[in-house]
């Protein structure tokens, strides 16, 4: 066996033991070596704030598939690391704090499709397919019942091709392209009461 100075000293049980950081008070091991350290892995992801059309950059910290923190992206040219009160509360979409200050799942977060029938006092859970079909049927029905081809304006009959019975709201949660298509669809149906949540 190759005998180095270091191994000779160790084999001989010499008084000069190996000099390590532990010998000068800089310990690396945990206080209870028999218990493994709780190591928590987290990923950082770039994303965009969902709340308005400004589109601030957000860095989300995700642990085990759950968002544990959301903060402004310091490299994003729009917000340079800052977030307004809505953007800063992204985390609270999923989690709120209980009386002990511990995060718990937000009970108000919608995770299922809920429907309140006309005149009903409460919501019931429904299937997405039923909900989307019903929405389409009711929009079509309302539009057909209230559609007016012409109107009397200043004593003259003019072509209007409109319905006044539907209000249509765009969303900052959607992209410009999606909002454009929604707007086109609304106009194609004759809807004229169109607005966007940013104005509210």
């Amino acid at each position, binding site marked *: 066996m190759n005998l180095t100075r*270091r191994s000779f000293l160790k084999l001989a049980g010499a008084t*000069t033991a190996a*000099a390590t950081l532990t*010998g000068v008070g800089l310990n690396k091991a945990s206080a209870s070596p028999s218990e493994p350290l*709780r*190591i*928590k*892995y987290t990923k950082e992801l*770039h994303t965009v704030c969902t709340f308005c059309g400004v589109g601030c950059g957000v860095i989300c910290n995700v642990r085990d598939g759950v968002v544990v923190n959301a903060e402004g*992206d310091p490299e994003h040219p729009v917000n340079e690391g800052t977030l307004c009160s809505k953007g800063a509360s992204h985390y609270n979409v999923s989690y709120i704090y209980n009386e002990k200050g511990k995060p718990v799942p937000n009970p108000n977060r919608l995770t299922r499709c809920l429907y309140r029938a006309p005149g009903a006092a409460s919501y019931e859970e429904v299937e997405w397919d039923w909900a989307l079909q019903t929405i389409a049927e009711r929009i079509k029905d309302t539009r057909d019942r209230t559609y007016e081809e012409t109107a009397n304006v200043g004593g003259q009959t003019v072509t209007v091709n409109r319905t006044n019975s539907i209000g249509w709201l765009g969303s900052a949660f959607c992209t410009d392209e999606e909002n454009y298509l929604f707007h086109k669809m609304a106009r194609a149906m004759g809807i004229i009461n169109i607005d966007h949540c940013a104005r509210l």
Partner: protein
Amino acid sequence: MPKLDRAIWEEEIKRCTRLYDGFKDAEPLIRAVYSAAEDFFKNNPLDVVSHFDAEEAEKMIRAGTTINLNPTIDTSALTGLLKVLNEALLKVNPKLKGTVNELEQKIEQFQNNSPDKVSKEDVLKLRDSLIKETTLEKDLATFLFSFLLSSLYRQQLYSINEVLRTDLWEGRDCPLCGEKPHFGYLAEESGKKMLECWLCGNEWEHTRIKCPYCDNSDHERLGYFTIEDNEICRVNYCQACYQYCKLFDARKFNADGKVVLAIHNLATLGHDLAARKEGFLPGSNQEWVNDNEVIDRQD
């Protein structure tokens, strides 16, 4: 990177004692070495590097080229400082007498066989030979020599920081000396990721979600881990090159002004051990972990 005065590092020791469990045991060592270095430089001031073309440096930084300023080191200053650091070790643990004696013999040999000025590489070769030929383990050698080199570099280069345009730097290594970083911090106000050179103390901004060693920016292969409930020290890893860098969340420091990250690094060496055990190597090549701490020895 201003020269450290006592008030700054004393404050940092207190802060680290509050923030990190178990750091109290290291207080005597940290205080001893910083005091020893402060006294040494008071009595043996070094020449500050004065020939520095700030305009040329700015051009190089804009072009993405590191300046690679590595001043030669006065051999007697090097060996003198190493001797006082050895004495500091002995004060903390008198049982190290055998190792300290071995080191002093080797230091004297080095001084006798070296020219008046040596390079950083010569110093690192000295370190490696001490690890091979004495009972000095890798981790303690890294501590001694990183403290030694960074003290000497900062004494000589501190005035350059005032004119160095690190805000224009978009690279990953230190724009001044070219060294790879071992740690950095998330800035207090903005959350920007700032890397700090362990050698010359220079700081520069780096892209938050990007590896500072291989430029990987695929977030699927980047991340960080924390240990127990301490969310201050993050071990940022990359699964493209399997290297790690430590980031300290300065937003949790409650600090006014200069923070001495080197002390935070020493307070969190458990994170370096955990990183090695999780399969990551230090991107800076700073070996804070001994081989026998990572492998279960059967002998």
